[in-house]
């Protein structure tokens, strides 16, 4: 009751504040002859990355006078998406919003609320060149005709981090991490024998161990090109590869070679503290690990099974893109297009890539960075780019785009946990994950199907009200 009372008071206080803000905004608008167009931009970057966004926006605002971008940190990725859901329902959506890859299917399904980036740019007379983008990055955010729906903004891919000091102590070559999963056990055994408390662990388990392992070996995750080709995709990652892989991990888990750090990125701290000697994590963790780790570590390509003919294919991207929301005025659309065009510039991209560790999204930005000699001093940054560019993406490796992906990930991790706890066999767990995920997918499919007879009826009744 007390909490309710506080909420009420806060709500009451907020009303006059908002009103005051509005009149203030009107006043300033009246004073100047041409007020800059305000663009609301919601993002999910905190800490050092948040500061980098603020700097980026400040540079853009200083570079011209007609557009003023207001960047607002709304919380982590899932919170930003949640806030957007609510804002669209209340018709108060921002102009631009940063949405993580898990939300891509939601955004694509929301045809009436989103303005595709390619259309935005064409209407503003400054179309983006599609082939300027790094192929797997562009492919993920494009429609079936190859047009960009959103601007890839911060992308990363999983890589292998290894503690070079621990490698030296174990008598392993610190310049060469195991290349294949078959070479892995010897290395894990060696670091454990040399006194490491934990050998291999991972962050974001479903993303690294299941989704990327599939693409890396050119094996499917879901039908319809992993959902890139339509909403009626169904999961089918219970493949020979996955059964073998999860069984191998389960035996490593029992032997103490593989340690489970839970969902999310708690494993990062375990690697940075020196507890775990090897870690599979996002390439964008590099800066944070560099800051926190008091030892020498290396970044290597994600290992693979060399008896799969197509491996290594290419890994998948994670991260987020900028989406333009619909229902805005023409002036606002032009202003949004200006900011997007600025972001896609090679020097802006290269700077963003070098300071944050995210993968460059345009080929020009990559070449610019390479020319500047940046990779000589930061070899870790290049591993991720090379992994993404290794081969032309296939149907299985362009990306995964599924509805209710957040819940599907939770289901996969849930089932993996059952394997470690010895409550399910790998094959049963994988089958169960596929089956549970497919229930959600069919639901998503039904909820987002383009309006047919039923929906039309619903519209009529609501109009009658």
């Amino acid at each position: 009751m007390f909490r309710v009372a506080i909420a009420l008071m806060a709500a009451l206080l907020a009303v006059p504040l908002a009103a005051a803000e509005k009149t203030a905004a009107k006043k300033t608008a009246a004073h100047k002859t041409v007020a800059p167009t305000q663009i609301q931009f919601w993002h999910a970057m905190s800490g050092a990355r948040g500061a980098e966004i603020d700097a980026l926006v400040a540079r853009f605002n200083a570079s011209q006078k007609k557009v003023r971008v207001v960047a607002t940190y709304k919380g982590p990725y899932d919170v930003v998406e949640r806030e957007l859901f609510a804002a669209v329902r209340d018709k108060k959506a921002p102009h631009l919003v940063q949405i993580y890859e898990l939300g891509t299917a939601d955004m694509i399904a929301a045809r009436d609320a989103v303005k595709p980036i390619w259309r935005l740019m064409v209407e503003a007379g400054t179309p983006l060149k599609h082939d300027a983008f790094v192929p797997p990055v562009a492919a993920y955010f494009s429609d079936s005709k190859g047009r960009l729906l959103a601007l890839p903004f911060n992308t990363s891919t999983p890589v292998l981090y290894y503690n070079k000091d621990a490698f030296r102590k174990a008598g392993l070559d610190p310049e060469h991490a195991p290349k294949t999963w078959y070479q892995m056990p010897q290395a894990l055994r060696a670091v454990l024998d040399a006194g490491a408390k934990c050998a291999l662990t991972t962050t974001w388990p479903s993303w690294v161990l299941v989704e990327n392992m599939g693409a890396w070996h050119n094996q499917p995750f879901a039908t319809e090109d992993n959902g890139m080709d339509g909403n009626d995709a169904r999961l089918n990652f219970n493949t020979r590869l996955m059964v073998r892989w999860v069984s191998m991990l389960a035996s490593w888990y029992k032997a103490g070679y593989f340690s489970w750090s839970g969902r999310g990125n708690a494993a990062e701290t375990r690697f940075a503290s020196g507890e775990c000697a090897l870690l599979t994590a996002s390439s964008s963790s590099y800066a944070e690990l560099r800051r926190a780790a008091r030892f020498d570590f290396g970044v290597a390509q994600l290992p693979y099974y060399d008896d799969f003919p197509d491996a290594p294919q290419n890994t998948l991207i994670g991260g987020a893109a900028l989406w333009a929301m619909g229902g805005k005025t023409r002036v606002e659309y032009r202003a949004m297009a200006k900011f997007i065009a600025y972001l896609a510039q090679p020097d802006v991209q290269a700077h963003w890539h070098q300071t944050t560790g995210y993968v460059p999204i345009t080929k020009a930005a990559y070449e610019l960075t390479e020319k500047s000699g940046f990779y000589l001093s930061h070899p870790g940054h290049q591993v991720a780019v090379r992994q993404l560019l290794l081969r032309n993406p296939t149907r299985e490796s362009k990306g995964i785009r599924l509805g209710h992906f957040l819940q599907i990930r939770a289901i996969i991790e849930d089932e993996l946990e059952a394997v470690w706890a010895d409550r399910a066999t790998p094959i049963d767990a994988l089958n169960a994950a596929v089956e549970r995920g497919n229930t959600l997918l069919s639901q998503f499919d039904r909820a987002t199907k383009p309006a047919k007879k039923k929906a039309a009826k619903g519209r009529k009744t609501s109009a009658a009200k």
Partner: protein
Amino acid sequence: MEKRVVFRSAWLPYLLVAPQIAITVVFFFWPAVQAIWYSFLLQDAFGLKTQFVGLQNFVTLFHDPHYLQSFKITAVFSVLVAGSGIVISLVLAAMADRVIRGALAYKTLLIWPYAVAPAIAGVLWAFMFAPSIGIVTYALKKMGVDWNWVVNGEQAMLLVVIAAVWNQISYNFLFFLAGLQSIPRSLIEAAAIDGAGPTRRFWSIVLPLLSPTTFFLLVINIVYAFFATFGVIDATTQGGPAGATQILVYKVFYDGVKAGDLGGSSAQSVVLMFIVITLTVIQFRFIERRVQY
């Protein structure tokens, strides 16, 4: 001896209860009605397309074996939270009631945790019990306990119960302390003169006289365990490992708020609402009879 206050004006009593009614309608009845309505709908996350699907959401729910498993987990969780919360705070209240020097300091410290939001409490405990860096984990490892709640379901359950109980103890403590202080001294003294020891006095006099308080707290704590604990779970285990701490309200929160599935989430909250209504009715019909006012 019954006191009766009679209002002269016909509308004044209604005016006086109006704020309370308004708050209940706005914050309880209105959302409850909306939840029931949404539970019959299938909607995309943005609310752009809405279809009426009847009982489909409920059918899907009860065909999901993990949802049914979640009932069992919720039952275990609620009994543990309500049971241990009440017992621990009763012990603490009985002790604090006997303290003479520094009583205020003890009481203040015991009430303190209530000011902490459940999510923060969860983070605090998760940090202390973190599988590799937690200070308690370190101590447990020294004692030879293999503490790893990211894989071990029982340990995960223990962790969320501890965090949830710790947060609620203060509330229970306050009521028990007030209850203890309202027990007439003469009764206890008379029993002491008759030769009853402290244990006997507690079981035969204090506990029965506290029964209205205990009953009230039982209802409140069950409601707390069912509804208010999703913050603790979200900050610690997020329902894992392998669904071991997936209580009903967390799934409502996860599906509705995090995953934007309003229809499915509403169906779950309607189910949850009926469970709690049934439980409360049972408590009032059968347990309240044994309460001595």
